[in-house]
């Protein structure tokens, strides 16, 4: 019995650590609606700064806690800097822009921390005065764990006081409920957001700094904490701090007892719990339904069939792609195959995002499912490439069928988070179900059939499948199905009121998008010869978002342009040192400077120059 009690206490201390990080994230989201991927980077920065400061003032209790607080403050200032320089400019943009911008910050911070603190793992000293164990029912419990257990409720209490007993807190709560109204009442929102970012980043930094005596500090801390913190925030209800506390307890104890019962499925477990909670309580344990913004933001222009000019450009491009292998070298063909695959992948995400208004943060799930589906046919059924390429979309569509049913019941950022959970379930299953997927060692030897073995032949196969997929989706966009989807996106109530079952249409769109992403995954696996769980992981989902954004969300040709530019850019800059920082900076620059994307930018120029019709004038 005492053993289980000790295990329970260990779970509590993990829960407290998790809560500190998650409550800052939840606070920031609640007020600013920013899904802040960089929160994990702030946490990592807090740990590194605190570690460095502790090295300077070793040994003393005051020195240690002074360092922790100073680190949290420094991180808070960095957070404010990020908010003022980057996020302030894009608050009115859809969630996607902010998410992608914060991912740019993640990349920047990774290289900045590597540059400043070096690449080696750092192992901080134990907290002075708290470096022993206390015997509870005869079981040794680290003193520092007890401190953390106490700290969770203390921070919760302080936050409660701040939010309920100060004017600032009242404004923050008001902004969480209805930020347009708060602005209309003359509250300086800009200032309010900055202070929220200060506090949120402070908590992330504090969370990181407090880990110095517990864990080794390394460059992988950021992404490993952020996935877990998202789970906590979503389970608790986005924006709800008591919710985050309960959710952190749940996840902390789940991990503590999970390793005893189901050690093989520890990663999957947390995401399954999150999915279950969202299905039962779509807005999390203590969350409230998203309040609709009063202004719907920018109204998108209706989509029109391509003009003659655009058609001829596309025709030329296609002709160029067909003759390309005769002119270019072998590696260019390989690269072009990659571009085609990612163009289809990005286009499938664009299909639900732009038409359906459904943002998916976990589109890699279907890419991965398609790739694994194809690989299974080769590995376990002894099938051919042709059969495998048929299985890829089926497997992905089946996944989208299941996940989509849950996802379309939600909207906005909740839906996005559920898609992320779905992708994490796919990824962790691929990672942990070693007998089926080979786990981290992946599945090897998945090469094309004899006739498609040459790079050129495979390129043409990819051109037919991916190009065909993109054109098929384009056709759907101009079909009644596409119009219905856009109707639902722009006004769900009116769409429902004319007798359309919007949810079914959205579900269908979700499956279609998953299916085409699956084709992309299938073509991808045969071009690389192997498949690993990474293909379903968060960075791959972010790749798709970046490609869509780079090309332009509101432009039909956007994803194709975006995929091309992104893939070629990545290939070019990954030759440089600190290329992640460069990529991050480019992503941020595009989000801030040219939110309409490259294709959108070209379209704008074309309209100005009179080559394309200006919708506003003609309507």
């Amino acid at each position, binding site marked *: 019995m005492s053993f289980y009690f000790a295990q329970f206490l260990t779970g509590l201390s993990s829960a407290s650590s998790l809560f500190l990080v998650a409550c800052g994230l939840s606070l920031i989201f609640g007020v600013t609606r920013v899904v802040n991927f960089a929160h994990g980077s702030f946490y990592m920065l807090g740990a590194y700064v605190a570690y460095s400061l502790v090295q300077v003032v070793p040994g003393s209790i005051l020195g240690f806690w002074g360092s922790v607080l100073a680190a949290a403050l420094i991180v808070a200032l960095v957070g404010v800097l990020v908010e003022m320089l980057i996020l302030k400019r894009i608050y009115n943009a859809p969630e996607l822009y902010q998410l992608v911008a914060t991912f740019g910050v993640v990349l920047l911070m990774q290289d900045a921390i590597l540059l400043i603190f070096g690449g080696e793992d750092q192992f901080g000293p134990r907290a002075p005065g708290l470096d022993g164990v206390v015997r509870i029912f005869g079981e040794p419990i680290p003193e520092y764990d007890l401190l953390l257990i106490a700290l969770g409720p203390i921070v919760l209490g302080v936050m409660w006081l701040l939010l309920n007993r100060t004017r600032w807190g009242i404004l923050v709560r008001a902004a969480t409920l209805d930020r347009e109204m708060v602005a209309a009442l003359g509250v300086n929102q800009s200032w309010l957001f900055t202070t929220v970012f200060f506090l949120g980043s402070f908590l992330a930094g504090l969370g990181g700094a407090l880990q110095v005596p517990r864990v080794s500090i390394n460059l992988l801390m950021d992404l490993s904490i952020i996935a877990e913190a998202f789970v906590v925030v979503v389970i608790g209800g986005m924006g709800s701090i008591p919710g985050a506390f309960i959710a952190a307890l749940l996840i902390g104890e789940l991990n503590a007892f999970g390793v005893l019962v189901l*050690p*093989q499925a520890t990663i999957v477990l947390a995401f399954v719990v999150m999915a279950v909670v969202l299905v039962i309580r779509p807005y999390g344990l203590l969350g409230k339904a998203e309040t609709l913004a009063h202004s719907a933001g920018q109204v998108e222009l209706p989509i029109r069939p391509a003009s003659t000019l655009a058609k001829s450009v596309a025709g030329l491009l296609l002709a160029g792609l067909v003759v390309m292998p005769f002119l270019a070298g072998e590696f260019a063909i390989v690269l072009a195959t990659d571009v085609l695959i990612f163009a289809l992948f990005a286009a499938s995400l664009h299909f639900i995002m732009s038409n359906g208004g459904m943002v998916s943060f976990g589109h890699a799930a279907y890419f991965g499912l398609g790739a694994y589906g194809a690989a299974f046919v080769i590995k376990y059924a002894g099938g051919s490439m042709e059969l495998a390429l048929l299985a890829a979309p089926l497997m992905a569509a089946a996944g989208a069928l299941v996940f989509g049913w849950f996802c379309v019941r939600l909207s906005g950022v909740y839906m996005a988070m559920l898609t992320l959970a779905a992708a994490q379930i796919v990824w962790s299953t691929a990672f942990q179900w070693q007998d089926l997927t080979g786990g981290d060692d992946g599945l090897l030897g998945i090469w094309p059939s004899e006739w498609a073995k040459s790079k050129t032949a495979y390129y043409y196969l990819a051109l037919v499948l991916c190009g065909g997929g993109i054109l098929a989706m384009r056709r759907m966009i101009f079909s009644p199905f596409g119009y219905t989807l856009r109707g639902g996106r722009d006004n769900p109530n009116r769409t429902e009121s004319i007798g359309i079952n919007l949810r079914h249409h959205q579900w269908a769109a979700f499956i279609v998008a998953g299916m085409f992403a699956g084709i992309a995954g299938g073509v991808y696996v045969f071009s690389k010869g192997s498949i690993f769980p990474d293909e379903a992981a968060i960075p791959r989902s972010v790749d798709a978002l970046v490609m869509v954004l780079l090309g332009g969300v509101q432009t039909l040709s956007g994803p194709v342009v975006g995929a091309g530019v992104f893939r070629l850019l990545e290939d070019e800059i990954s030759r440089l040192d600190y290329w992640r920082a460069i990529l991050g900076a480019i992503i941020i620059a595009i989000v801030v400077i040219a939110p309409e994307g490259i294709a959108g930018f070209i379209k704008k120029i074309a309209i100005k120059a009179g080559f394309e019709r200006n919708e506003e004038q003609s309507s």
Partner: protein
Amino acid sequence: MKILKYMAGCVLAAGVALTAIAAQAAEPIRIGEINSYSRLPAFLDPYKKGWELALEEVNAAGGIKGRPLEIIDRDDGGKPGNAVTIAEEMVSKEKVTLLTGTFLSNIGLAVTDFAKQNKVFFLAAEPLADAIVWKSGNRYTFRLRPSTTMQAAMLAKEAAKTGAKKWATVAPNYAYGKEAVAAFKKELTKLVPDAEFVEEQWPTVFKIDAGPVVRAVEAAKPDGIFNVTFGGDLAQFVREGNLRGTFENRTVVSLLSGEPEYLEPLKGEAPKGWIVTGYPQGAVDTPEHKAFFDAYMKKWGEAPKLGSIVGYNVIASLAALLNKADAYDTETLVDTMKGLEVMSPSGKFVFRAQDHQSTMGAWVGKTDVKDGAGVMVDWFYADGADYQPSDEDVKAMRPAD
């Protein structure tokens, strides 16, 4: 018009002449090197410094048969898909003679498979997965560093001597951890038939929650613990275990933990008396190692790590190969590599003809703390040749070429 033609002719002739001279003087031998530099700087910085030192030495000594050696290195960002694309580029655009590199097992395996499909010579430098030379082994792939099973076998032999019978294992929950535990169990039961495995813990890689793991191990009351966690997970495991006295009066056997990459970050908290594989750096006093150690210190101003030796040995192996081979087509290179002897700072090793694994060994010893830093004591060099499966076993595990 005539003048123009004449001038063009001149330029052309001059160009041809220049190229001919350049080619005669020294057309470099190009080697493609792919690794996860940005993802794992702590391991790959020392590795890169190691191969840069070796490259400098080879070229200072006149290169390979009068031709300089050139390395084209690229970062794969830790993604297997990227590594394959880079491999394609190196082969088709950069026209490299052969490929080498990789650290993570999954990337090593992806390139192994690429080498087989495209008939390209590949020397896997660092990945440990057994599959690279056994299950997924192929004619075109060789591997330098001692594999998971080799190192587990070295440890099992020492573990058997301690007399511990009841064992608990702690390993990260992915392919590497599972392979290591399976190999250790197999080797230990060969030596100690009545050994019992009473507890298995599989913490998530890079996300260990060390408290519960340590408690579960303790609850099983084993005589010995076999640990496979590394990096940050190891640090946390050590700290929680030290705090709770889990390692007192128990034999602890730990894979790779004696490598400076893992031991140094632990500083004064490094465990004492663990049986580990690793690298005792400055303490190795063979003449060939001393020469390497001093040259490395002189060039980089820091002591080499295990990665540095691996990086150095990559170039040592490839230089030996290229010096010996009469031609640089892939098939000749593969045939020359089989049974190739290499002199290196870690001693002489051979690339086995039967499974393409090198017999480069590892240092086995005990951990201790001296002057606030973890070190290896009572160590010896375990020659990789002594920890190989029988030829029949290799035949059963490895697909025919």
